[in-house]
């Protein structure tokens, strides 16, 4: 039981990272971006490439950090990958979403995001192949946290959880204590009024994409570390991430964080109730339950 709870939190951290970006984009640009999860794939593969590159260029970095399977090369690669993924999110906005936003309506944006997701997924498949890949072939054995009840945790996952919490705390400070944070919230609240007050809407949109892409990249790498990397990461995670966003309430960053943990824990605990064959239904069930009980999510506000 406690083991399942812990596993859920570890998976939830990854979903939260993905959901933060999604909820910000959904709130500001007012459309359900189905291509958001593909940013996780981009991040995971970008880190894979940079990681290999660094290991060749600077063999010093190829040593593992303490008990982790992560190397310093991978840490550097993650930073670069976050930047690259953020940049590609901005690029997608320039190429696709901005044009559709100017000419089409909300629904066109949703369809455009579907199309973009397909393109990104298949291009990754074309370039890297459909087989699964790993950052490190070594299997890092789980550490026993306690004997009774038996609690096993992989060091990588703890590191990922710690990093996630640190980033969330930083994000919280930025949003609540800086002018930039107010500006961001103002734009989300009412774009026209925000512009009247001298906020550059275009700049804010770029920043939201950069942030969302960067966090998604981090989620992709953490997922690749604890699982494996394949071109269908995005497809596999799009639903849980959406569930997390909806549970938390669209637009609420804290809601997204909490939603991620709720979905992760629920999916793990579901095995007590459901046969294992039905576990993919859990995100759907959560979405339905939330929409029935609190249509705007836990932290969301009604919006016309």
């Amino acid at each position: 039981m406690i083991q399942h709870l812990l596993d859920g939190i570890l998976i939830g951290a990854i979903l939260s990272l993905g959901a933060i970006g999604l909820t910000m984009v959904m709130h500001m640009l007012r459309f359900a971006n189905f291509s958001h999860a593909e940013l996780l794939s981009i991040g995971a593969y970008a880190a894979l490439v940079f990681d290999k590159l660094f290991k060749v260029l600077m063999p010093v970095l190829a040593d593992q950090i303490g008990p982790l399977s992560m190397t310093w090369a991978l840490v550097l690669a993650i930073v670069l990958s976050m930047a690259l993924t953020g940049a590609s999110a901005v690029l997608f906005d320039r190429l696709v979403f901005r044009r559709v936003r100017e000419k089409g309506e909300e629904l066109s944006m949703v369809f455009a995001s579907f199309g973009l997701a397909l393109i990104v997924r298949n291009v990754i498949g074309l370039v890297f192949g459909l087989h699964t890949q790993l950052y490190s072939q070594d299997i890092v054995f789980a550490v026993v946290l306690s004997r009774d009840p038996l609690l096993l945790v992989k060091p990588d996952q703890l590191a990922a959880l710690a990093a996630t919490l640190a980033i969330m705390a930083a994000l919280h400070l930025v949003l609540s204590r800086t002018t930039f944070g107010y500006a961001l919230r103002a734009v989300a609240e009412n774009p026209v009024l925000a512009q009247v007050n001298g906020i550059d809407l275009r700049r804010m949109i770029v920043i939201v994409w950069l942030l969302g892409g960067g966090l998604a990249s981090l989620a992709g790498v953490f997922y690749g570390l604890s699982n494996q990397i394949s071109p269908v990461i995005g497809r596999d995670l799009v639903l849980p991430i959406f569930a997390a966003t909806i549970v938390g309430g669209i637009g609420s960053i804290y809601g997204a964080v909490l939603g991620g943990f709720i979905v992760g824990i629920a999916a793990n605990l579901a095995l007590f109730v459901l046969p294992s064959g039905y576990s993919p239904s859990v995100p759907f069930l959560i979405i339905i339950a939330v929409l029935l009980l609190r249509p705007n999510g836990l932290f969301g506000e009604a919006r016309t």
Partner: protein
Amino acid sequence: MKRRISTRAGLTLGTALGMAVLAGGAAAQDCTTKVGAVLPTSVDWGRPIAETAQFVVDQVNEAGGVAGCRIEMVLRDTQVDPKVGVDAAKALVDLDGVQVLLGAVSSGVSMPILTSVTVPGKVMQMSCCSSSTAFTTLAEEGKAGGLWFRTFATTGVQAAVGAKVAADQGYKSVAILYKNDDWGQDLGKLIASDFEALGIEVTASVAINDGQPSFRAEVTEAMAGNPDALYLGLYPNEGTAAVREWLSLGGTQNMILANSLKSDEFRDNVGLQYLGNALGTDTASPRVASADAFVERYKARFDSEPNGPGLANSYDATMIALLAMEAAGKDATGEEIAAQVSRVTDPEGTPVTADAEGFAAARQVLADGGSVMYQGATGNVRFDANGDVSAPAVVWSFTESGTEEVQYLSLDEVDGFIASLK
């Protein structure tokens, strides 16, 4: 402009060549009998299966065709999609009027074709590659109308050999992870009952859905009973993730693997150092002369080894279907042809080889009212009452360069072991 002319010239040349070939064929026999084939030609491993079937048809035509008529195989693609496969089969039965349908490959495609096209249409269906035991159940219930045959051993063989490995290794308890699709559920159920028949405790049987954010919960559940060994009925993709999770949580390295995990990707991503106690199972080609003869014939024709899945099975499926058509005589219905299958695979019959000469020899024997024993690419094929065949099996393990055979179980050993489970 220039390109257009050359295209047209090419077309004309092609048409002329085609006509010449057709004319040549038609000169030998003045009638044509169609057989249908529904195979996944749009996937890379499906095309060789279809080419092998066509290879058989060519040889039979070379030997003078079936019942005095030239055979034309009308091939349609299934795209490994049940809907497309049923449409293709319907078109072949209704429009082309075929009495014999070859295919499909996947059980999930063959099944709807059988229940909604061939059984209602009273057409014989012969699959090269479907392994689900759902067909056995259907035949036992009498719903296949005696029209269903397959030259591919059922999942039952794979499961039984997996259970035998566990017993031979002395494992007392086993946890099962199976893929949550038709094949995996079938395999999971079969091996669980085989384990029980051998007195091996099944501590957990857990379905694995592909594309999950994490397999942690499933693996933890499988680990709960602290089993001696782990049985894996998974594909390499989710298999790698599940096994890495299993090992990192301190699970046993005693593993039994289904043939689907016989893959370099799985070995490399899990790591050979953890697979020392992993034993795999697979069905095998029989070690008989007729199987070697098939390999030689295949190499002579296609200039490559018959390494893809289902090639020997496709060869035998086609040849047996055509032999049965020969035995049933001209303009026979699907039911009449299906009734003749036992006469061309009769263990007491005159042995015939699986080539043009063999077909001509069989024609002679059948015309005299005798029966023949077909000796094919998968050995002396013998169908049971449900249209199923058995197969020899191998136990294999991973090595640096691929896999190596640990043990070979002949057809008699496999059949004997399966009988002992019941």
